């Protein structure tokens, strides 16, 4: 299978990473060689194999319904790029 520029555009949109025209070709080339390498898995027949669901052979531990994290708004907002004490601020989505 082959990764073309159309695919690059599609993945770029899905992953929200813009790719400049000049860089797109090289990227497609890199990804193609990586995928050629990954294709090796097709040599194996795996219809009757169960996928690995968890490495650790245990199940989910449940926690009690207690409020342990109190109001830490200052900590939470402290690192945000915009200067607002109450909210995170982002540019609008175009509707």
């Amino acid at each position, binding site marked *: 299978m082959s990764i073309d520029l159309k695919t690059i555009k*599609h993945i770029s*949109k*899905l992953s*929200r990473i813009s790719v400049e025209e000049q860089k797109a070709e090289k990227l497609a080339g890199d990804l193609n060689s990586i995928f050629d390498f990954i294709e090796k898995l097709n040599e194996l027949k795996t219809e009757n194999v169960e996928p690995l*669901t*968890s490495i*650790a052979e*245990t*199940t*989910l*531990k*449940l*926690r*009690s*319904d*207690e*409020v*342990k*994290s*109190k*109001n*830490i*708004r200052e*900590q*939470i*907002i402290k690192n945000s790029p*915009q200067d*607002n004490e*109450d*909210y*995170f*601020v*982002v*540019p*609008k*989505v*175009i*509707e």
Partner: protein
Amino acid sequence: MSNNNSEYLISRKNNQYEIVIGLEVHAQVTSQSKLFSTSATKFGAEPNTQVSLVDAAFPGMLPIINEFCVKQAIKTGIGLNAKINKRSVFDRKNYFYADLPQGYQISQFKNPIVGEGKVILDMPDGQKEVGIERLHLEQDAGKSIHDLDPQNTFVDLNRSGVALMEIVSKPDLRSPDEVNIYIKKLRSIMRYLGTCDGNMQEGSLRADVNVSVRLKGSKELGTRCEIKNVNSIKFMQMAIEYEANRQVDLIEEGKTIDQETRLFDTKKNETRSMRSKEDAHDYRYFPDPDLLPLEVSDSFVEKLKSEIPELPDEKKKRFIEKFNLSPYEATILVSDIETSKYFEDVIKNSDIKLATNWIIGELFAVLNDKNLEIIQSPISAKNLSKLINLIKDGTISGKIAKTIFELMMDGDKDPQKIVEEKGLKQESNPKAIEEIIAKVIKDNPNKVKEYKSGKDKLFGFFVGQVMKISGGKANPQLVNEILKKNL
């Protein structure tokens, strides 16, 4: 567009179409802390004050599941007569949005915690069974506020991570009415269980509606459209009507229907396509590697089963059998758990028939008029019970009781006290009534003659006169009896 009997059909020239509706209801789980983090879930807190490091998706933060939310989901599943899946898996649903801090929502895709079930709806003309496809747990997103600033969107993550139960119905609903009853039934069941408070104004209950149409009698499903973010039952019904007609029009014109997501515009009362989000639907689901599969034991589920209270359907059956209520009355009284509690409180010490009538009649009228829930009722069950007893033992007449009822609303006054203060006790002394009747007969000889000559309707006049003179306190039954004798 019309219906005959219970069928809701859309008619055009030669064709009749039925609507096929499926609902995806999102119900916020009642719990102290969130699904995967330990911050609080209370509605209405100051922005970003109920957000933990995990909720805000800081580097290195990890989800830890809340046992109580798991129990709430299983209980709801039991209330829906559904299969509980003892092993379920959490998957990541990947997409980007400002109120989704992780860039993915933890949900359940292929292995939900609850499987197929069913809900019985009480329709005016009988019962209808609606299938449940599944119920799964997932995180709620935060809130994006678009109107505080012209250039920017403000984000509040308080709601981010709150546990949601997504209940997916089978496409068994056929009309806006059925949708109304279905949502109310779901809401009722969850309120009985205490798993969701069903408060649509606060957003605890929301639904996405899937609508398609097909020719009456067809077994094939048409192309469906999803209407998102409709936050009231009324708007849902309007949206369904609009959308179904839109689709029928397209079919009649020979056009195809695009499978798409639409919004309901509450100003124009129409649905419109959401601005094209080409790859918005490639969520790239995969099992969340930060979480292991969830496994619950048989005994875990059994214990929860034993904690289930009497649910609406059971309670309705019991009310009909034990209290002799009609199906109509029983349905109303069990529809909300608080109503049924109120009712059962009143009838502890009071006549059931009177209680039924007074609650469904007078009390509901007041609550509707003042837009109150029954737990906000201005008259307590205790005092309503007292009022009913005063009627039953003849102390007051039904008519006077209505007056007293009005007076009781001001601060839940004790009806006994009102009777005493206002001297509203019914006059039930036959001698006293005879005296009044005698006076009325004496004072109205012409009317007596007319009555005796056949004008039966004048009986009411005499009753009225007796009431007037007695200040409304004469016992109506006695008045009738004695009047009949004396006229």
